[in-house]
């Protein structure tokens, strides 16, 4: 299992294998064994060159703008992104040209043409305001506060200009507070000393952009603390190459960029599947018995497992589903949870349970199916290398995590995973497990009713209420989440960025509708969205998507009825146009437009189909078991 000590030859082999890896999953596996935190400069150079040879279409277009030398950052980004199976295209702004790049006045500025998904702005205060920073100790407190406001307004006007001219997400680095402030330990007693200055600058930066749909703060101060602030700047490289961030620290920044890129693209995985014995507690319940397994205070291992549970609960609160896949007797596990009420995670915390003696890859398949998730939404963690390697082999889409030998290190492993990163935790996310539990109850009820064959009775018994309203700016985060996450019930699978959605909201020829639902079992939250676009005499359904949780109960019909009503409400001779673009995942909606009474206008070789519904043929279809409310307040959701 361990890599040979002589990592030199080994790394050449890894680089060759990486260059030749057939696909993203193979690349991810090839690089899984490389400890990027310990990569030497020459190894980085070897590996990044090998990745350069790979080529391929980029997943993320990243622009880096700075007032210091960042030329090594793309190398690090290539390596860190490759380990996640991603590829980045790079744009490196001219030295100290971050304003000109955005305003497009610097010679041959190609930033707008590059059309980045993500723009990093990293500024060094000593280069931004050289005199003030060099003479900080002799500035009056009032002047220091002015300096703070001056830096903040510089960043704000930069962001304003960038937001207007680019459709990218902006990533603004904050400022590592100094390790050796000018006044030494007296700095904290100084009136607005260097430490206070940095703390407030970073705090204000955070407050000004918090919750912004397209601006994120890159917490360089936290990264610097983790890396070791003494090593963030290498004096020699600072003076020789204006490299304010040392090559090693750039590796840290690149690792963080992976997280931001994944989150901005909504690529977060959705469910963490856990083993039980020696993963959620110490020992084996089948051998040690319910009282013998170690979890809880009073025992070092038990306390580590306790903390691991708390980390998992924190993950759950961000909307990540937890599930169990374990080789055990279900009765033993049930007894354990029954007799040990002090265990933080309860059986009801798991959205799916696969406890038995079958192979784990089969259990994982069943978990994915029962949660209506793709295998690429799962992360599987186990302490047994035989299990993780078999799963990795059988289900390459699943991210497998081999837990370290000591439970003391479990929580840290969890925190290092970039798979669950998202830019913001939305109000509905904490209730994800509850929503899935409610969904199980619905399915149970459906199973009972299936025996009696009374589907309409089942649908009526759900007492579904639907609220459809125009999307507002506040809805952008959830709207973006729907557009990035919805694969099955998605007619065109247009993956709009936050910026594109924001633009659609403001376009007079566009209407963005958003649907929220609840039923007798609970609030389902925002489950659907429709984008309509006026094109001459056509009202075109640009996007029509619905969360998989809401499928199979006629909500889509109620939503389409609403669209038809929009057609009928318009004066003149408007017609309704629809478009279906097939993907690997949206087969369930292949005949949606036909089912809703549309006629096929054109079917292309690619499978893309255009539909038309004339005004005279627009008929609402029955879905009387759904109560549609116009006033969203009536649902009590907002």
């Amino acid at each position, binding site marked *: 299992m361990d890599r040979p000590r002589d990592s*030199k030859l080994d790394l050449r082999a890894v680089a060759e294998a990486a260059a030749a890896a057939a696909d993203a999953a193979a690349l991810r596996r090839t690089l899984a064994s490389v400890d990027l935190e310990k990569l030497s*400069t*020459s190894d980085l150079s070897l590996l990044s060159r090998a990745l350069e040879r790979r080529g391929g279409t980029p997943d993320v277009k990243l622009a880096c703008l700075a007032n210091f030398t960042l030329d090594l950052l793309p190398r690090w980004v290539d390596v860190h992104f490759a380990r996640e199976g991603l590829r980045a295209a790079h744009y490196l702004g001219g030295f100290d040209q971050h304003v000109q790049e955005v305003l497009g006045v610097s010679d041959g500025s190609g930033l707008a043409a590059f059309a980045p998904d993500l723009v990093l702005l990293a500024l060094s205060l000593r280069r931004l305001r050289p005199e003030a920073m060099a003479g900080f100790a002799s500035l009056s407190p009032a002047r220091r506060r002015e300096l703070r406001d001056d830096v903040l307004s510089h960043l704000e006007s930069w962001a304003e200009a960038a937001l207007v001219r680019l459709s990218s997400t902006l990533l603004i680095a904050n400022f590592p507070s100094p390790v050796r402030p000018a006044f030494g330990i007296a700095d904290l007693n100084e009136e607005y000393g260097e430490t206070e200055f940095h703390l407030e600058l970073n705090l204000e930066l955070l407050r000004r952009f918090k919750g912004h749909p397209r601006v994120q703060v890159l917490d360089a101060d936290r990264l610097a603390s983790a890396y070791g602030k003494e090593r963030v700047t290498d004096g*020699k*490289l600072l003076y020789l190459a204006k490299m304010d961030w040392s090559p090693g620290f750039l590796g840290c920044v690149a690792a963080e960029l992976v997280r931001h890129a994944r989150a901005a693209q909504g690529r977060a995985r959705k469910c963490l599947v856990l083993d039980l014995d020696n993963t959620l507690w110490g020992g084996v319940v089948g051998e040690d018995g319910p009282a013998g397994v170690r979890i809880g205070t009073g025992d070092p291992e038990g306390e580590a497992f306790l903390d691991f549970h708390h980390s998992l609960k924190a993950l759950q609160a961000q909307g990540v589903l937890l599930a169990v896949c374990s080789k055990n007797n279900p009765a033993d596990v049930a007894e354990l949870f029954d007799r040990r009420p002090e265990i933080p995670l309860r059986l009801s915390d798991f959205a799916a349970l696969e406890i038995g003696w079958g192979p784990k890859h089969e259990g994982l398949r069943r978990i994915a199916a029962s949660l209506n998730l793709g295998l690429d939404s799962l992360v599987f963690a186990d302490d047994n290398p035989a299990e993780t390697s078999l799963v990795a082999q059988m289900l390459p889409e699943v991210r497998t995590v081999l837990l370290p030998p000591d439970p003391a290190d479990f929580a840290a492993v969890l925190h290092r995973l970039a798979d669950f990163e998202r830019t913001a935790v939305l109000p509905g996310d904490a209730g994800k497990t509850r929503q899935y539990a409610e969904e199980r109850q619905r399915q149970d009820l459906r199973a009972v009713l299936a025996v009696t064959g009374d589907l309409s009775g089942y649908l009526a018994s759900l007492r579904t209420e639907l609220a459809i309203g125009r999307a507002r700016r506040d809805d952008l985060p959830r709207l973006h989440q729907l557009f990035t996450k919805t694969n099955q019930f998605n007619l065109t699978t247009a993956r709009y960025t936050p910026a594109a959605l924001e633009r659609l909201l403001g376009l007079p020829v566009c209407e963005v509708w958003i649907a929220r639902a609840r039923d007798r079992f609970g609030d389902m939250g925002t489950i659907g969205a429709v984008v309509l676009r006026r094109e001459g005499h056509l009202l075109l359904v640009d996007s029509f998507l619905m969360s998989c949780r809401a499928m199979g109960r006629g909500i889509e019909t109620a939503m389409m009825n609403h669209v038809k009503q929009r057609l009928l409400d318009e004066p003149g001779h408007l017609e309704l146009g629809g478009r279906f673009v097939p993907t690997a995942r949206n087969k369930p909606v292949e005949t949606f437009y036909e089912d809703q009474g549309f006629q096929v206008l054109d079917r292309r070789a690619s499978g893309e189909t255009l539909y038309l519904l004339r005004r005279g043929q627009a008929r609402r279809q029955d879905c009387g078991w759904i109560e549609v409310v116009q006033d969203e307040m009536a649902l009590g959701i907002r």
Partner: protein
Amino acid sequence: MPPAAEHRIREVMAQVFELDPGAIHDGFSRADAPLWSSLAHLQMVSALEEAFGIRFTMKEVGEMERFDSIRRLVAARLHG
């Protein structure tokens, strides 16, 4: 300088400039390595510092233009 250390220098340089270690002869200089940019130069310096656990001065970095001068500077650091 022990042969192992000399071999290590060639290996590091070969890796940074993407060459075969055998290509790095005594008189090997900037002109012989197409990838020897100013950025690659600093990468080579960092890589040598990491490999030998030494630190060069800014002045020395400016003198590291040929294999034999690099070998001399590494040897001076190791035995100086």
